[in-house]
């Protein structure tokens, strides 16, 4: 639990960038993509895409595998789901605390 808790800000940080979000959005369609494919149709350099993919990889939201001479990247929905589960839990705790506050003052 504390491990996924610790990952929360890292996942947020990884997702808090428009370029990375757009890369992730493409990957989240379910297909594996190479750096070349992800660079195609964008104004980004290959180096920039690689740099952003490494940040996403560090946060665990994408995984790289070798396919011949190139790396292909794949979306992993679990960290995003973990963050959401975590926020849901915090949210529920507040609901309960505020219910007790209500009972206490009314």
């Amino acid at each position, binding site marked *: 639990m504390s491990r996924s808790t610790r990952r929360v800000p890292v996942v947020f940080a990884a997702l808090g960038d428009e370029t990375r979000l757009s890369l992730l*959005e493409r990957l989240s369609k379910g297909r594996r993509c190479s750096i070349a494919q992800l660079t195609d149709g964008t104004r980004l350099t290959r180096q920039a895409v690689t740099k952003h993919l490494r940040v996403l990889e560090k946060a665990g939201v994408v995984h790289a595998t070798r396919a011949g001479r190139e790396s292909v990247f794949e979306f992993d929905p679990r960290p995003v789901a973990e963050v959401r589960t975590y926020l849901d839990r915090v949210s529920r705790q507040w609901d309960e605390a505020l219910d007790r506050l209500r009972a206490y003052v009314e």
Partner: protein
Amino acid sequence: MEDRIEKTIELKAPISRVWRALTDHREFGEWFRVKLDGPFVPGETSSGWITWPGYEHLKWEAVVQSMEPERYFSFTWHPYAIDPAVDYSAEPSTLVEFRLEEIPAGTLLMLTESGFSKLPEDRRSLAFRMNDGGWTQQIGNIEVHVAQHA
């Protein structure tokens, strides 16, 4: 998925009553289930022990940020610090804010907890940047995907 939690509730109690329940450390402890060592003082650390059955071994710690009588109360803390073996001081802290407003029925209480994306010092290089519009919208798209694959 937002970087904050927001709650709004209407309480059938006068604003002075709600203010006391929030900021008197004994009253706060009653509903929040924590036994605090002393009164809340802006700028100072408030500490105590959780009184929730089964969690009494857990320390409660927060830094009071601001107290504007019958209007605004805020503190920072480490959310969900449940593992006594972990030193949470290096973990990101969130800001908890209570805003009060008088309404005919009594008091409107707005709670916000924000800063889940805030990073400890050593991770500043990855600093979170809030994007207007794009962020929420695109997260929405990813969320749909997560929901389908959960």
